[in-house]
Each structure stands twice: as C-alpha cells, then as structure tokens.
C-alpha cells in the first residue's frame, strides 16, 4: 500500500513538473512573441511620429528574430519604413538603396500570406515604388547622354518587374513603348546637334534612334507619333548625307551618295504613309509625303500632296 502511495506521489510529481515546465516554455514563447510584436508596435509608433530613422533602428535588428521573421505584418512595417526613408532622403537618387530594400521587404511580406488589410497596403506601397522607377526612367531621358540607353531601360525594367510581381497579368506595353519612343527622340536630338561625325557616332545615334522607334512600334503598332518620328529620322539622315556633297565630291561618289539617300528616303516613305493613313488631314504628314516624293524625284506625287495641303489650307476657318 505504502509502495503504491509512493508510486502515485512520484507519478503526480512528475506530471506536475511536466505541466509546470510546459507552462514555463509556453510563457517564454509568448513573452518572446509578445516582445517581437512590441518591437513592431514601437517601430510603428516612431513612424507615426515621423521618426523613421528611429523606427528602422528598432525594427531592423529584430528582423533576424525568429518570432517575427515569418510575420508578414513585421515585414510590411519594415518595408513601409524603408519606403518613407527613401521618400524623405533618397527620392532623387535613382540608385537609392533604401528603395531597393523597401521593395525587397514588401515583396517578402507579400509572400508570407498577409492579412487582407495588409495585402492592400503592401500592394499600394509596391505600386508607389514601381511608379517611382518609371518616373526616374523618364527623368533620365530628359537628361539623356550618349550611351545611357541601357541604364534607362534597366530602370524601366525594375518598374516592369515590380508591376508584374504585383499583378502578373499587368500590361506595361504602353509605358514601355513611351520610353522607347522617348529614347528614339533623345538619340535623334543629339544626332541633329552633331557638327561633325567623330568615331562613327553619327551612325550609332541614327541606328539607335531607329531601333528604339521600331521597337516602340512593335509594342504599339499604329502609333502616329512613333511612325511620324521614325519617318523623319530616316529622311533627315538621308538629307544629312546629301548635304556633305561639295566641290570635292567626284561623280562616282555623287552617284553612291545619291543611292544611299534614295534608299533612306524610300525607307522613310512606309512609316510616313502609315502615319498619313491614321490621320489623313495632318499637315505634317502631308508635308512629309510631299517632301519625300520630291526628294525621290517623283514630281507628280509630290504635287498631289502639295495640292492636298493647299486644299486643306483653303478650307481652314
């Protein structure tokens, strides 16, 4: 009987210890989690007070903490803080590291099955960051320098990648076509301003300009502006060759230059005609066709467009 009592006491003591131990582990676990959540909440509080540096200082070291490492909300908060720091301190820096970190954090949050509320906020934040890349790409075209095409396209590529990560069915063809068209114009502007052809730069700029326009038209066929600008680029390049003719040009060279120019003028005819078909009453395409046919020694066709211009001029109010 005593033995049985001793056994019972031992068994109960063991159970008691196990329960106490489990409770202690659970308590530690909860404390751990609770302290991770506290850090996030503190970071949010700092952020709401506009103190983004402090918010980041508190939260970033804790992101290696297992309790919040897989917490989508924590990653969202981190991404948001990094986004705000980018906005306040690095908005003019195309290579902003904060922006890249923000994208990374927000994408991580998106991949950890966030709550519906957080998901919307994450999408909005990523969309903002994606558009900042698009804006930067277009700003870079404004300050275009020779050879910066690939850099600009890389920046645009980031916009495209983030946008498609948010929505795989997103179609960015229009924006892409715009960027390519702007690059075509940018190269064309520098080409027009060249006073001498050094190291084959003229041909490089011309080919890049044409390639960009053609790619833009592949993305959005039937774009009036793209067609017209492509036609002008081809035609003007032909005229550029012709204008180099002088008293030292031999007859043979003259014929060769004429052949090259005619090829360019003929090539410019197709996009100009396409642009004209899209908008038959636009003066610039009528003038373009009149001029190209004139350059191709096709007086009848040239005169036909001249008459069309005169007719439209007369009918103008």
């Amino acid at each position, binding site marked *: 009987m005593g033995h049985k009592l001793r056994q019972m006491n031992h068994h109960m003591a063991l159970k008691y210890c196990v329960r106490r131990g489990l409770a202690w582990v659970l308590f530690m676990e909860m404390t751990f989690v609770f302290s991770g959540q506290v850090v996030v909440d503190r970071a949010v509080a700092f952020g709401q007070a506009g103190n983004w540096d402090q918010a980041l200082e508190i939260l970033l070291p804790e992101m290696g903490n297992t309790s919040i490492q897989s917490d989508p909300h924590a990653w969202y908060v981190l991404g948001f803080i990094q986004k705000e720091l980018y906005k306040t301190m690095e908005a003019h820096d195309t290579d902003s590291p904060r922006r890249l970190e923000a994208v990374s954090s927000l994408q991580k949050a998106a991949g950890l099955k966030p709550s519906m509320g957080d998901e919307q906020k994450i999408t909005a934040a990523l969309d903002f960051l994606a558009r900042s890349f698009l804006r930067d790409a277009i700003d870079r075209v404004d300050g275009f320098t020779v050879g910066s095409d690939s850099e600009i396209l890389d920046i645009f590529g980031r916009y495209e990648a983030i946008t498609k990560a948010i929505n795989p069915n997103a179609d960015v063809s229009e924006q892409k076509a715009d960027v390519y068209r702007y690059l075509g114009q940018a190269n*064309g502007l520098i080409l027009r301003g060249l006073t001498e052809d050094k190291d084959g730069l003229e041909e490089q700029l011309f080919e890049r300009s044409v390639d960009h326009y053609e790619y833009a038209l592949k993305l959005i066929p039937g774009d009036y502006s793209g067609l017209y600008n492509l036609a002008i680029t081809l035609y003007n390049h032909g005229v550029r060759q012709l204008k180099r003719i*002088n008293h030292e040009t031999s007859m043979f060279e003259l014929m060769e230059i*004429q052949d090259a120019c005619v090829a360019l003028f003929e090539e410019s005819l197709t996009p100009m005609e396409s642009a004209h078909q899209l908008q038959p009453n636009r003066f*610039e395409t009528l003038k373009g066709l009149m001029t190209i046919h004139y350059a191709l020694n096709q007086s009848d066709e040239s005169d036909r467009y001249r008459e069309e211009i005169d007719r439209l001029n007369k009918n103008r109010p």
Partner: protein
Amino acid sequence: MTSTIKDFSLKRFSLRYKATCFACIVFLVAVAASLVPEVQGDDLDNTDTRAVMKANFLFHFAASNEWPAETKTGPFRMVVIENERLFLELIDKYALKPIGVQPLEIVFFESPSDINLSDAPHLIYLESSEGLVDFPKDWEDQPILIVTDSDTGLANGSTINFVAVDRRLRYEINRKEAANKGLLLGSRILSWAINSDK
C-alpha cells in the same frame, strides 16, 4: 439713380458674360489641343535635296567639259534662271571655286529675257526649256552650255537635260548640240549620261 444702377448691373452682367465665354473658349481649345496627339521629336529637314544634287552636277558640268580657249579669260560664269534655291546652294558651296584657271561666278536671273550676251555666260541653267525661245537666235552658235530640267529639254535645244530615272536624278546629253556650240563634253560627263551613246 435707378437707371445708373441698372446700367451698372447690365455692364457687370455683360462683362461677366464675356469673361465666361472667353473662359469656355480657352477651355475648349485646351481640351481640343489635348486630344490631338503630340508629335515630338525631329523636325523635317527642309533642304531642297534636288537643288543640292543639281548644284553638284552643274559644278561637274562646268569643271569636266571643255570650252574654247577664247572663253578662258575672266571668271567662269554660271547663270541660274528661275530656281533661286539652286542659286543659293551654288553660292554656298561652289562660288569662286576654280574651274581650270577661272574662278566660278554664279549669277541669278528671274527670267531668260533678263540675260544679255554681253554677260558672256559659259553655262546657263533654266528649269523649263520653253524659256529657250526667249534666247536670241545668235546665241545658238555661242559656246554656252545650256542645261534644263524639262521633258522636252533636248528637243528644244538644250545640251544637257536632267531626268529622273529610278527615283534618282540623272541627265541626258545632246552631243551634236554640244559640237555645234564648240563645246567638248568630258569623258566623265559622257560616261554617266543615260544616253551616252547618242
């Protein structure tokens, strides 16, 4: 007092009405402008491409043909009739360039009747060959190279006539006419003519 107030009210109404109309027009124009797609980028180069080609051809006609010895004093006179753009292109790139020992002088006239034989031109360019009838008969035997750009150029008496072949500017020659004038067409000029065997 009442009528003054009324006048003032009417004037204010009228002014307000005009301002509203003006604002509407500006708005409509802005909307219309925004609907027309912008065409940005290069402007069309307005260079007269045919004038550029013709000018170089004329320079070659001057430099590569042979005139009688008695015409080789003083400047080499090239006369351009009717085509002012061609004249300007010639002036820009070829004026005073040597034609043998003679500096090239380029002169412009509005019509064939403005030229005198005393001007002693070596080469005359005119757009249409109809103008040839205005030249005096005693010019026919003078060593003046007449260049035209007309369907009936050679038939009307020019020595060289520009033609369009396969979208390119080329020229045809009248050897007999050249010989009558005492002009010797150079081999280079002959070889590039489209009818060099005539």
